[in-house]
């Protein structure tokens, strides 16, 4: 799980202080606890497992037991500054719908996805002819919760289709610090193990008030 730590560090860097954050699939609330302590965010978690939510509550993190596939519809529009979906998009029944909902609920989304186009995946598939089992995706095909895996290119294509703007993208791996990348470069589709995206809507879409420029997001 040390991969999550690098993931978290990058999210922590990207989230502006004192904002409203919804973490979908928040587990035991570790990320929200970190964001609350370090950035003073007003956090809310959504988690499917009762034990996860109970752990959140015991830590003082607001969390709702619910299903990202079903329960996002009940959140009002633009209720949050950030919606975070950390490595769970590929576990959703309707990832496309979830992405649309994220961008309705929040102004920005932080989404991390394991890259099925990573060279280790391609190599394992090429040499063994079997579904790859790697550190990032350790489960055999018959028990993996990951039902909608995609490559970096798949994901950027979907973003373009949905009119989502990639404000920032970083490659994250278990033991190395996050590396800012241009997801459009073909090489990254080979070497990024997991990619973390900061997404906003394309400018003309929301009739919402002007947002701050992206500059202060990366200080």
């Amino acid at each position, binding site marked *: 799980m040390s991969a999550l730590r690098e993931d978290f560090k990058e999210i922590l860097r990207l989230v502006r202080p004192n904002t409203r954050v919804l973490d979908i699939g928040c587990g035991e609330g570790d990320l929200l606890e970190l964001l609350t302590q370090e950035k003073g965010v*007003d956090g*809310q978690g959504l988690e499917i497992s*009762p034990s996860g*939510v*109970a752990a*959140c*509550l*015991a*830590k*003082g*993190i*607001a*969390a*709702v*037991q*619910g299903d990202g596939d079903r*329960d996002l519809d*009940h*959140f*009002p529009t633009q*209720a949050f500054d950030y919606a975070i979906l950390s490595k769970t998009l590929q576990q959703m029944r309707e990832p496309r719908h979830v992405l649309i909902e994220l961008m309705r609920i929040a102004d920005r989304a932080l989404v991390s996805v394991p890259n099925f186009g990573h060279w280790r995946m391609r190599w394992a598939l090429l040499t063994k002819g079997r579904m790859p089992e790697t550190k990032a995706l350790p489960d055999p095909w018959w028990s993996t919760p990951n039902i909608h895996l995609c490559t970096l290119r798949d994901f950027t294509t979907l973003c373009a289709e949905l009119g989502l703007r990639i404000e920032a993208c970083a490659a994250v791996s278990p033991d190395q610090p996050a590396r800012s990348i241009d997801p459009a470069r073909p090489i990254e589709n080979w070497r990024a193990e997991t990619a973390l995206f900061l997404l906003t809507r394309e400018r003309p879409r929301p009739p919402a008030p002007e947002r701050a420029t992206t500059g202060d997001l990366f200080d």
Partner: protein
Amino acid sequence: MSQTVLASPAIETNGGTLRLPVDAPLRLDSGATLAPLEIAYKTYGRLNADRSNAVLVCHALTGDQHAASVHPITGKPGWWNRVIGPGLPLDPDRYFIICTNVIGGCMGSTGPSSIDPVTGKPFGLTFPVITIADMVRAQAMLLDALGIETLFAAVGGSMGGMQVLQWAADYPHRLHSAVCIAAAARHSAQNIAFHEVGRQAIMADPDWRGGAYEAHGVRPEKGLAVARMAAHITYLSEAALQRKFGRELQRDGLSWGFDAPDFQVESYLRHQGASFVDRFDANSYLYITRALDYFDLAASHDGVLANAFRRARDVRFCVLSFSSDWLYSTGESRDIVRALNAAGCRASFVEIETDKGHDAIFLEEPVLHSALRGFFESQASRRGLA
């Protein structure tokens, strides 16, 4: 108006009865007014200097103000002594905990067994029908009298949870946080049906006397006991009943008759019914079950539950349900949470895994207690409580 009784050596308790004069009537949803009004209550702990640590604990249908102190009739410990007490989620060292007997009740607050000042006799069925909102309005009047403008939290399970929801709808500005356990935003047909069985049992008892039993020096104990027995089944899960009693017999072999209970579960229910009548009034049972049946928070907000919470965006909510509770199931709590989310309120929600049914509110449930502790801790730091 108050006397100090030590519940346990460590808790400072207080309380008494607030008497509101005739010129300060309680206006009821039915259009009637109630005056003079008495509200019986208990407090645990001390109100702090800036009056920011008050917690209102709301009781369930057959509960009362003795949440954490010995019951004066039964001699049993308070009904929530696993939650309120030193080192527990609601620690009287930190919070000023208030619990009132609801109006319509029979433990000191004005109810059908109170004396009607006009006739000099007990109200009986001339007592006006009350609602959950009326109960809450009376609680707000008590807080006014105690000089408490804002509650740190309103907390309750079952009917207590409904009062909490009503607080959020009617007095959101007087509420910092709200905890609703094993409740619903409205009574379902099944809920109403079970209550109707209980009411009919009471009214079928010849000693009920059209509600005027006190004047005749009798009490409809059999009817009230049956009402309690039927209701008690709804508080337990099938699994809990099976685990506790199964088909175990009271004695060796069957009796081949109807006088003595054959099965342990029969004996248990009879005991529940018999001990209940010692501490509860039959007419109160009619009135409070009526109040519950009338409860439909969405109906009074254009049919949209979220509308009830639109003014409560600054209130932090915690909604809890129990997996084996079939009286107010998890689905009901989920509806509340979705409405809160839709209204833009911050809410926590967890379904607690247990086979103890609705009664789990009052039982040893570590996840319930750690969730409550975590929620109150985080709200206390948000509120700046020491």
